[in-house]
């Protein structure tokens, strides 16, 4: 099987994730979509690693996973705090950072 198909899959997953971020209001779903995009990027990295025959891409993918995990920890905590104070997980309700 040609490794290019993995790239197609990665592009598809990234697009789905991007649409999720742009279209959904629920913060949790937006968060999951971001994870999807990150993982699509990981998939692409690993595929390139395979195609070029070196490990750079795989190492990069590990970094991404670590950063994604850290992000989830902070992000979920914020979402929980926002939900507690406003009783809503909608990202549109939290539009406080404007002039």
């Amino acid at each position, binding site marked *: 099987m040609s490794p290019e198909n993995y790239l197609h899959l990665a592009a598809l997953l990234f697009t789905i994730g*991007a649409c999720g*971020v*742009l279209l959904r*209001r629920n913060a949790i779903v*937006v968060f999951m979509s971001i994870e999807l995009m990150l993982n699509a990027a990981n998939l692409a990295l690993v595929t390139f690693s395979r195609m070029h025959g070196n490990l750079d891409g795989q190492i990069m993918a590990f970094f991404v996973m670590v950063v994604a995990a850290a992000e989830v920890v902070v992000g979920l905590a914020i979402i929980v705090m926002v939900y507690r104070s406003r009783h809503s997980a909608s*990202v*549109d309700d*939290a*539009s*406080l*950072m*404007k*002039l």
Partner: protein
Amino acid sequence: MESLIGLLVAAPLLGAALLLVGGRRLDRFGHWLATGLAALSFALAVVLFVDMLGRDGGDRALSQHLYSWVPVSGFQADIAFQLDQLSMTFVLLITSVGTLIHLYSVGYMEHDVRRRRFFAYLNLFLAAMLILVLADNYLLLYVGWEGVGLASFLLIGFWQHKPSAATAAKKAFVVNRVGDVGLAIAIFLMFSTFGTFAFSPVLSTAEQASEGTLTAIGLMLLLAACGKSAQVPLQSWLGDAMEGPTPVSALIHAATMVTAGVYLVVRSGAIFDGAPAAQTVVVVVGAVTLLFGAIVGCAKDDIKKALAGSTMSQIGYMMLAAGLGPIGYVFAIMHLVTHGFFKAGLFLGAGSVMHGMNDEVDMRRYGGLRKYMPVTFVTMGLGYLAIIGFPYLSGFFSKDEIIYAAFGKGGAEGWILGGVTLLGAALTAYYMTRIMLMTFFGEKRWVKDAEGNDPHPHESPLSMTVPMIVLAVGSVGAGFVFNLNHSFVDWLSPVVATADGNSPVSHGMVSVLATVLMLVGVGAAWFQYGRRPIPEVAPTGVWITRAARRDLLQDDFNHAAFVTPGSYLTRGLVYVDHKLVDGVVNGTAAGFGGLSGRLRKVQNGFARSYAASMFGGAAILIAVTLLMRAV
């Protein structure tokens, strides 16, 4: 001897400085100090004159180089004086009449609290006028030229609390400034043509310059002369200048300063001789002003303004003579000197009348004054006879020579100019007779003044009458002395070009014609003002009288042509500066402000729109990168 020239100028200058800086402690004797310094100047002038007479005609000129004023590469301006016969004539006139008028003012200004300043300004005027006539280059002449303008400004506006006086002073200065620009441009032209503006190199090289250049210089000098000498079209300030105290009108606006234009033209004779076109313009200006002034003088009821019209007219004679070239120069100066005497005398007489009549100037409120002011009447009467050209008095000699020279121009021009000057003689006789009749003859038409005081006409004190008597003697005798053995012509001929005209009319014929026309003018005035009582309110009169009362619409013209458009222009420009020039800048600032206001709206706080713009931006970047690679 040369070193005395500087002293001549320094004495009144010192007086002005002392009186202005000295303050109140000089109030008690300041006027005598000023008069003494003026007299000292006169004494020095006499010493120099006697010394000058002791030498031959050819080497009478003295010069004194004081110091190099503005030395810049290629440009040399010196403070240097030159005293030749022409300057000497003026110096004697200025210092003698000046001293007399200082003396007169001691009496005239006795009750004015600011008398010290008045004398300071008078001294300043004397100094500036002496610089004007003694300068050996045009730039120093310019200094004197503007200096007398300043003194004239200060003295016309001496009674500053009167808005009319302040306005008249400003008007005089500004109109004169227009003329001064002419002098400045003439100096620029001389500098770029000859590389210098000292009299002797410029005038001796003038014949080599092209006629176009000389015409340009000549016309610019004429503009200057028009401003200073109140010639058409810059005549409008002189009538208003009568707001000043009467001694000022006598000294500055009759005898000396206003004749400076004639001096300038005569002094620059070598330039005008090479520029016939400019000479023609000078003659035309002189002829037009001659009639203009005379017509205005015929209609005015204000005694000083009538005399001012007369001054304009007489200077028109001089200017006309100066424009005739070598056949007229000497007679222009001769008339200038005799006019200096009789016009100063007439003004002092008018001042004496006003002094006795609570400062009333309207001749319709005089009448019958000859019994109350005998000295004034006699001295003014002699001045009157002199100015109208009564045979064997001063005006007879000097004016007839000008009329004769005008005919001497030859051809049609000669006839026209001769005719104009003769007509002027008749008008002179008319308006002067009118003044005399309205003031000294007829019934009393006196009225109470503003405070309700009846006028008590009385003869003026000695300090006022003595100068009047001296000037009256000068008015009577000067012409005769000047004409004795052609003494005046011989005196000036080494420095001023002379020539004989070819008049179609004989000299005797001119005298007869002028005398007849003079009698016609006197008769007409007597017919109108002597034979029947004078109405207290001026009759409406025909259109020319009405126009002449308004100075032949000079101010209406200036307002319509300059003042009104000028004020619209300034107001428009203030608007433009605020709205357009500043507006562009403020507009730019407002534009940036507005733009940032718009851009601020993009920060709407919605996380998803931020994400969308991120995606959009990334997509554009990728697209651009791909496109670049494709190209």
